């Protein structure tokens, strides 16, 4: 256990569109052990997907700057050649996208799309062996192999997402990045897919980065949690640490929990976070969260990022509020 698989060091990503610079990811540090499940939580524009795309080197053309290091199995992905990255992509690291409806190719059968990945990464595999692997993958995700000759439109949303998972896992990757894999699905189907992913994760011991805004799914599935805001990780730790209501948290984390209508107890009013998430091109100075923070102090408004406070264990909070505690 605890063998380091992925280590992101001081990663910053900037996009430039029409001369406007968006600071999508800012000085992000993250690491993940083999077989570990990390929940990357945040709202639209927090930089979750950009982080994922950086790991896969799939950043869009308008990316103007990528700074920092992304070590995967000891190699810096950002320094590899395109050919070397291709060998990793789909083979060692694969990704499930949010929208199963648009991620599959409508003119190829489901079986062909799964076979495609297997063939790409296994040049001398026989046709029969590829087909056998396709059947095996379909069974693994709970689809009868006979359906491999069908096209994506013949599948329901939940089934399409299962196909995506089959494609992603076809080469037994070390790391699976799942970007909001169940957001487009109904709750009962979401429960099926999450349960299946959890079982597969245990069975194959794949490390997973689960990108989501749903804290409920995180609680169900993840070992570690990182809360993102304005391209930064504002709080991270084990699931138990971040979800522990008796300890200190980043005001944004508190706000996120307060925004959730609670199913187990009835509250008369929600306590939302005031204001709106800033666009990555207009991030404020100082702490990125300060204009929305109910506990904002003078020191938060200027200067660099707030200090990272170690709250015991692996629990880290990036906030001025708890700074005195350290000193």
């Amino acid at each position, binding site marked *: 256990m605890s063998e380091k698989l992925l280590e992101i060091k001081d990663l910053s990503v900037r996009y430039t569109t029409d001369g406007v610079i968006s600071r999508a990811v800012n000085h992000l540090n993250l690491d993940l052990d083999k077989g570990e499940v990390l929940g990357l939580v945040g709202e639209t524009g927090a930089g979750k997907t950009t982080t994922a795309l950086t790991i896969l080197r799939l950043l869009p053309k308008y990316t103007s700057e990528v700074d920092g290091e992304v070590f995967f199995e000891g190699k810096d992905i950002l320094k590899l050649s395109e050919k070397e990255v291709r060998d990793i992509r789909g083979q060692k690291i694969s990704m499930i996208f949010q929208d199963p409806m648009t991620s599959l190719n409508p003119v190829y059968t489901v079986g062909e799309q799964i076979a495609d990945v297997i063939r790409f990464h296994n040049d001398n595999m026989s046709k029969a062996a590829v087909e056998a692997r396709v059947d095996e993958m379909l069974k693994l995700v709970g689809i009868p192999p006979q359906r491999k000759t069908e096209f994506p439109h013949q599948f329901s949303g939940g089934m399409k997402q299962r196909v995506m998972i089959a494609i992603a896992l076809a080469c037994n990757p070390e790391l699976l990045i799942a970007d909001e894999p169940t957001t487009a699905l109904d709750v009962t*189907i979401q429960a*099926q897919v999450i349960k299946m992913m959890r079982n597969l994760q245990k069975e194959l011991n794949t490390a997973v980065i689960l990108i989501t805004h*749903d804290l409920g799914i995180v609680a169900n599935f993840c070992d570690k949690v990182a809360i993102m805001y304005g391209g930064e990780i504002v709080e991270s730790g084990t*699931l138990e640490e971040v979800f522990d209501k008796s300890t200190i948290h980043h005001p944004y984390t508190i706000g996120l929990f307060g925004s959730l209508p609670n*199913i187990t107890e009835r509250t008369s009013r929600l306590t939302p976070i005031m204001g709106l998430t800033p666009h990555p091109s207009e991030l404020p100075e100082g702490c990125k969260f300060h204009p929305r923070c109910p506990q904002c102090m003078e020191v938060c408004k200027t200067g660099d990022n707030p200090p990272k406070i170690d709250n015991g264990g692996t629990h880290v909070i990036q906030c001025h509020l708890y700074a005195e505690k350290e000193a």
Partner: protein
Amino acid sequence: MSEERKVLLEVDHLKKYFDTPRGMLHAVDDVTFQIEEGKTLGVVGESGCGKSTLGRTILRLLPSTDGKIIFNGEDITHVDSSRMLALRRDMQIIFQDPFSSLDPKMTVSQIIEEPLKIHKIYKNKAERMERVKELMSIVGLDERYVMTYPHELDGGRRQRIGVARALALNPKFIICDEPVSALDVSIQAQILNLMMDLKDSMGLTYIFITHDLSVVKHISDDILVLYLGKMVEMTDSDTLFDKPLHPYTKALLTAIPVPDASYKGKEAEVMKGEVTSPIEPPPGCRFAARCPLASERCLKESPEFKEVEPNHFVACHLYD
């Protein structure tokens, strides 16, 4: 309890079928309920259960196949379009998608002003603009956005425009069709709070259509669960969550992921299968194919929707 409230909306055996090439699609099948003034009815179900069709049929945006809609004591099922236009002053809708429900070629003020123009409420433009500004402040939209276009605004602000437009005519009744599902959680909470405040201050009655059970619990007095166009269970919000009776409701409730670390790794009962087709549904209970407790009888005979406990209605043979 307090005095009897007036029933604002009554839906009586309402049906909406669509004629498709593959047969009759039973989108809304025999739905009956009442809403008292000032209450909120939550309508819950998965995609394809007919919840949006129900909302649109009630507002006569879609013609009904059978049944009656009685609003404020008047049977509106077949009233003519001029009467319907007048009625729409009292019945409004907020749509799910703040990105496609606003005309991209109209400014914020034009969008909010449109209902005021159609219903000729104010004499001149100045008075209308006065009202537009008032509405914008009610829903928490800064006045400087008057001349902006929807694409310049984020989802939360856009949904506020949708709310302002629905409120423009001072309606009594609003159908909210998944008004927050396209929004981020922190923004979702802001809009939910806004809607609850408006309900209290303006005495609104809502039908709140959603697939999100935690949202519906938060906002509703009563909840109606639909499955493939059929009513499955209806009772007050607390009872539904504390003591659900129908196997489908129970499955829905256990499927919600709870944001609490103690739930980690807990094996919830996961419902098998998927929603079956609403086209020419077979006789018997629509949920039977996925129901863990289904018997022979469920496949043959459709269960009756009846009161099994005071104010707790359910359609299931288990409670015969």
